[in-house]
């Protein structure tokens, strides 16, 4: 990624709202340069800078996702809980909501995957959810350590993905849906913790019984 293409990508991001994740947005980005060009970039230049066909659109999608993650970090304040952080991220989807299904379709139709195996490639979308949840967990400082670090991130990425998919069809109810998912996850987490605690009581009592029976001496 050269400096020029990086700069043009950055300038193309505000144009996504009007033009979608298209080569058109990339070619119009040249008009927003500090010393603007007279005409938008020709198609050959877009191919040279960003790749042929849909590759260019995919680069734009990735750039938009990276930018929204960066904004997540910059706009985070001290008191934000996990719910607030994720809602802010969902809110940043709103300007480009009508173009997002196409963006996800672009991500899923990666040319690297051999068609007979699987028609769609879930990996980039899962990676996107994982990156959002990683950033959210660092911002919200959810004090998970060691193995629970991974389970917490997996849960949050699943919750975020579900909420984002919900937002694509019904944007008004997405925050409430997110809240209900987070609450369910918390309940499930508490239930698991209490089960583990009870199991530890049972284990300790059996250990005490075996010790006092004199079998081990």
């Amino acid at each position: 990624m050269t400096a020029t293409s990086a700069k043009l990508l950055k300038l193309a991001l505000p144009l996504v709202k009007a033009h979608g994740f298209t080569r058109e947005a990339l070619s119009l980005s040249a008009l927003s340069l500090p010393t603007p060009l007279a005409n938008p970039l020709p198609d050959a230049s877009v191919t040279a800078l960003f790749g042929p066909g849909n590759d260019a659109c995919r680069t734009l999608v990735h750039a938009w996702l990276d930018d929204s993650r960066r904004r997540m970090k910059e706009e985070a304040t001290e008191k934000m809980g996990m719910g607030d952080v994720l809602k802010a991220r969902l809110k940043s989807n709103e300007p480009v909501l009508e173009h997002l299904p196409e963006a996800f379709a672009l991500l899923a139709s990666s040319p690297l995957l051999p068609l007979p195996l699987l028609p769609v490639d879930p990996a980039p979308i899962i990676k996107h959810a994982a990156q959002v949840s990683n950033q959210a967990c660092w911002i919200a400082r959810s004090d998970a350590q060691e193995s629970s670090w991974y389970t917490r991130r997996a849960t949050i990425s699943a919750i975020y993905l579900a909420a984002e998919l919900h937002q694509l069809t019904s944007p008004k109810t997405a925050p409430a849906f997110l809240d209900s998912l987070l609450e369910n996850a918390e309940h499930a987490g508490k239930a698991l913790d209490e089960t583990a605690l009870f199991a530890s009581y049972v284990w300790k009592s059996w250990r005490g019984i075996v010790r006092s029976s004199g079998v081990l001496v």
Partner: protein
Amino acid sequence: MLARCRFLAANALRPSIRTITCRASDFYTDPSKNQELGVSTSPDISPKQREILDRALRVDQAGEIAANWIYRGQFAVLGRDPRVGPLIQEMWDQEKLHLEVMDKLQLQHEVRPTLLSDVAKVTGYALGAATALMGKEAAMACTEAVETVIGEHYDDKFSQLKDFELLPSSHPSIPLLRDVIKEFRDDELEHLDIAVEHHSQRAPAHALLSAVVAGGCKVAIELCKRF
């Protein structure tokens, strides 16, 4: 930084204290130093440097987890021994401090912890308990082997500086990290000396035991760098 510590300490209110050496890890364990730049922020470095820092801290944290559980396993068997029990307890307490500092470093630099932390706990406990069951000298031999590998690992990082040279010293957290690694290296080598003093060399099949334990540690270090 250490000179500043000594300067401040020397000017403390109680004149009867002549010198107080300030350990680098105090910056992480002392709650009053929580807000200092070197402890609460991470430097802005390139992705390659970030990867180096990431791996280094991940391996170090995994090592401290394993060391903690090895001592826990040894203490479970030999804790009641009048000579060796307090020794193991003391070394274990130092490792607990190391782990506390490593956890804080991991959070400060936003490092992914190792996926193998549960494996490290189980194998550490099993190793500690197994060598302790083989006898006091075998337990000391296990400590000797583990501390040799860890001491060398920290020493490589610190003296070769192959990795750390790439990290910028302009941000206060990097010199602090170097000082912490140096302090931990000295602690681990002290444990090694204690183990040798307490007849680790008399352990049955000492060479074989040391080779197996050291080999296992090296494999674990390589795995934790990646996972």
